[in-house]
């Protein structure tokens, strides 16, 4: 494929990718109410589809460039921020960078995004403010593309918080329902906590590089960062910890906020309050993966901070396991999928933690396919049953064949059954973890075991979900059963497309044992730092094959157990739950995490707020009023004292003058002569006075 499009031409079209969805958002947002609904749908979907086409064109242009290390296009738009001073300057450009990593993400965002836009047309039919919905969805696509295509960290931060805003707007889309609005707010504030970490990391990075390079580094462009990153090692560590690690950890805090990892994941389960396509698009495929993308984009930083990498890996692994355990006991179909997303994200961070960047991205891509499919499937189920609770579903296999089939494809993929993409990417991660040589001896092996166990749990709770939803008899009451219907084609087409992708998806990153080229790894090569330990050194193929078999075994046992519990002997879960009542209850209540956070952060903050409010009201204001009262009293005192002493004297004086006045009054006789006399006397006296002296 010689380059169909010459790179220069493509470079000028880069800005179209994010700006088309932005245009769609503006049109729908401002004029939406007046446009007919069909036009709103068309504008919404078309803008994302066009962006997808341009991304594909970009992809091929990149492929066209032979020399792998030249495979990137940068389009600087305009000077964004410029402050100059003597020792240096801080200048940032608004520029888009298209390189293998960002084009992969672009394709996922626009491709899956378009399918979900299509699906939303069906799902949101009948909702009265569709224009606003599509405007927000397009705005989200714009922010995500901005995040992915940004060429410097601050512009990425703009996209980073932009997606946070859109997730807030979309989660609280049906804002008339107060608790949905609260979920939106919770999401935004938790994201904001993460962004705090991101921003501090950004500042620390800039100034360390600025001082290190004494003034030559002036911006945060990735190219500039990549070249000057060794300066971090020379910078003096703070509190004994190397600067690279500090920065890595701070960025990771941002990532946990955005990609819902252990400390800051609490907002994702509540985010299910938004419409299901939103959950599929934002809270499964794109936004939550921003954290992973950011770490992979800054791989050159993390590579020189092994401690930070270890932390990422551990947090990823633990989150994966932790979320999987909670998913076991959830009855709301969307919450199960939410926790499963957190768990899969944990896997991605595990992969990135062990420096298997391309594998992390590979799992990100495959996860986008099957998780979006799962959510959309759940969406069409909810659309039919009008409730999220799995206990009211069951036996939908008969009523919704298409949804069932596509759902099964995704189910098999996520559970890790061989040919499907889920298996390939997850196994690749386990393999990379097994081979990884993290600073702590044996940590790699421990994490691998944890990952394996989580894979089993994943298989189990996915089987539980499928069993409760599609198998057995419909538990949702007879009259509801009557009008159970398959979703319209506009909804099932995306399901099928995604099903194909989740089945075939595995092909782009085949493991070494198959002796076939790992397309994605080679494609991403130049972007990732050279010594990415993605396990392609010479190693015993038999070991990889053995591990693969083990993971297949674990997956099948998980499925069997799930089938056993929920299909063959439905009473079994009740007995098990009874025996481990306490443990079950803890899981069921999501380890009481929400309550702990409430007690640990929210309530003290509110107390502090109330305190400062009162403090301000009566202390400072009080002080001011107090001072006014004191001066008032003091002035009264002076007034009293003044009244008695000074006043007395003054009055006495006044008396004297009054008497003299009375005396002099007689002089004013009214006769003119007397006045003339006094005049003449006066003058005469004056003359005498002048004469004598």
């Amino acid at each position: 494929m010689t380059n169909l499009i010459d790179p220069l031409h493509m470079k000028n079209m880069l800005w179209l990718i994010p700006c088309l969805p932005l245009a769609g958002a503006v049109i729908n947002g401002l004029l939406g109410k007046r446009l007919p609904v069909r036009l709103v749908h068309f504008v919404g979907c078309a803008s994302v589809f066009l962006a997808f086409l341009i991304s594909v064109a970009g992809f091929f242009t990149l492929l066209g460039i032979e020399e792998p290390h030249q495979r990137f296009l940068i389009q600087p738009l305009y000077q964004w921020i410029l402050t100059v001073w003597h020792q240096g300057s801080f200048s940032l450009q608004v520029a888009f960078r298209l390189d293998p990593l960002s084009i992969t993400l672009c394709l996922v965002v626009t491709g899956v995004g378009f399918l979900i836009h299509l699906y939303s047309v069906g799902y949101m039919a009948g909702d009265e403010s569709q224009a606003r919905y599509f405007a927000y969805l397009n705005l989200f696509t714009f922010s995500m593309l901005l995040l992915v295509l940004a060429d410097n960290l601050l512009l990425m931060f703009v996209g980073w918080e932009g997606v946070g805003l859109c997730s807030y707007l979309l989660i609280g889309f049906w804002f008339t329902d107060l608790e949905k609005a609260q979920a939106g707010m919770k999401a935004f504030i938790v994201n904001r906590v993460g962004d705090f970490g991101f921003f501090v990391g950004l500042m620390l990075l800039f100034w360390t590089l600025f001082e290190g390079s004494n003034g030559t580094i002036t911006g945060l462009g990735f190219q500039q960062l990549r070249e000057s990153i060794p300066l971090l090692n020379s910078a003096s560590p703070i509190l004994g910890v190397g600067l690279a690690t500090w920065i890595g950890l701070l960025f990771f805090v941002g990532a946990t906020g955005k990609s819902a990892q252990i400390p800051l994941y609490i907002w994702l389960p509540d985010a299910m309050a938004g419409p299901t396509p939103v959950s599929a698009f934002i809270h499964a495929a794109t936004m939550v993966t921003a954290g992973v993308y950011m770490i992979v984009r800054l791989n050159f930083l993390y590579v020189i901070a092994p401690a930070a990498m270890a932390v990422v890996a551990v947090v990823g692994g633990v989150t994966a396991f932790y979320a999987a355990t909670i998913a076991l006991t959830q009855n709301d179909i969307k919450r199960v999928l939410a926790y499963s997303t957190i768990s899969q994200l944990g896997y991605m961070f595990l992969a990135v933690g062990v420096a298997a960047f391309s594998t992390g991205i590979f799992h990100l891509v495959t996860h986008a396919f099957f998780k979006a499919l799962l959510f959309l499937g759940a969406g069409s189920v909810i659309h039919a049953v009008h409730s999220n609770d799995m206990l009211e579903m069951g036996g939908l296999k008969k009523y919704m064949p298409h949804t069932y089939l596509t759902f099964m494809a995704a189910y098999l993929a996520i559970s890790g059954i061989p040919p499907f993409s889920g298996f390939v990417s997850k196994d690749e991660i386990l393999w990379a973890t097994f081979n990884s040589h993290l600073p702590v001896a044996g940590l790699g092996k421990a994490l691998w075991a944890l990952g394996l166990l989580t894979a089993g749990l994943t298989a189990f709770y996915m089987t539980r979900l499928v069993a409760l939803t599609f198998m057995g008899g419909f538990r949702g009451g007879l009259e509801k059963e009557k009008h159970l219907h398959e979703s319209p084609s506009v909804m099932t087409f995306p399901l099928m497309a995604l099903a194909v992708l989740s089945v075939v998806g595995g092909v782009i990153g085949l493991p070494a044992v198959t002796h076939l080229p790992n397309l994605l790894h080679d494609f991403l090569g130049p972007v990732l730092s050279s010594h990415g330990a993605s396990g392609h050194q010479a190693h015993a193929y038999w070991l990889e094959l053995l591990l693969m078999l083990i993971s297949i075994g674990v997956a099948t046992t998980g499925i069997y157990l799930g089938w056993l519990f929920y299909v063959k002997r439905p009473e079994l879960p009740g007995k098990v739950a009874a025996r481990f009542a306490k443990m079950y209850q803890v899981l069921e209540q999501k380890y009481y995490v929400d309550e702990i956070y409430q007690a640990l952060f929210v309530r003290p903050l509110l107390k502090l707020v109330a305190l400062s409010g009162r403090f301000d009201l009566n202390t400072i204001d009080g002080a001011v009023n107090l001072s006014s009262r004191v001066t008032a009293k003091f002035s009264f005192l002076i007034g009293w004292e003044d009244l008695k002493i000074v006043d007395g004297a003054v009055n006495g004086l006044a008396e004297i003058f009054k008497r003299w006045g009375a005396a002099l009054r007689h002089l004013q006789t009214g006769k003119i002569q007397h006045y003339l006399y006094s005049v003449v006397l006066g003058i005469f006296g004056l003359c005498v006075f002048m004469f004598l002296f």
Partner: protein
Amino acid sequence: MTDLIFNVFILLTIIPCFWVALSSNIVHAAFSLLITLFGIAGLYVLLGADFIGVIQVIVYIGGILVLIIFGVMMTQRGKLLPLSIQLPGKLFGAVLTGVILAALLLSATRTLWPVAAVLGEPQLTSAAIGDLLLGKYLIPFEIASVLLLAALIGAVLIARRSVRGE
């Protein structure tokens, strides 16, 4: 010869003054004032101030005195007023006047006035006065005119109010 004329005019000025001061009939006082003013005009001419003398006659006598006489005639209805205040008032006035007169006379005669050695021949002064008035003393001249205007308006106003009985 000039001394004689001079003494005549002095008498002409001083004697009627006593009538003005003491006479009980206001009309007599007014006419004696007329004679005094003529005397003074004569003295002016004697002092070489011919223009001032003529002005004195025209303005002072022709204008002001006529006005006063007019005023006297206007208010002369009914009984003749006892023209001076009771005795103690007069006595006090006389004593005061005497003292001041003595002081003035003393200063007039005692001080050595820097009299010009030779008295220049008196020439016609009106041209020179004209130049001075419109040259060096232009501003006082203008102010005097404004003063007269103001007095005119004031007089009209006061008179008008009194006539309407406000």
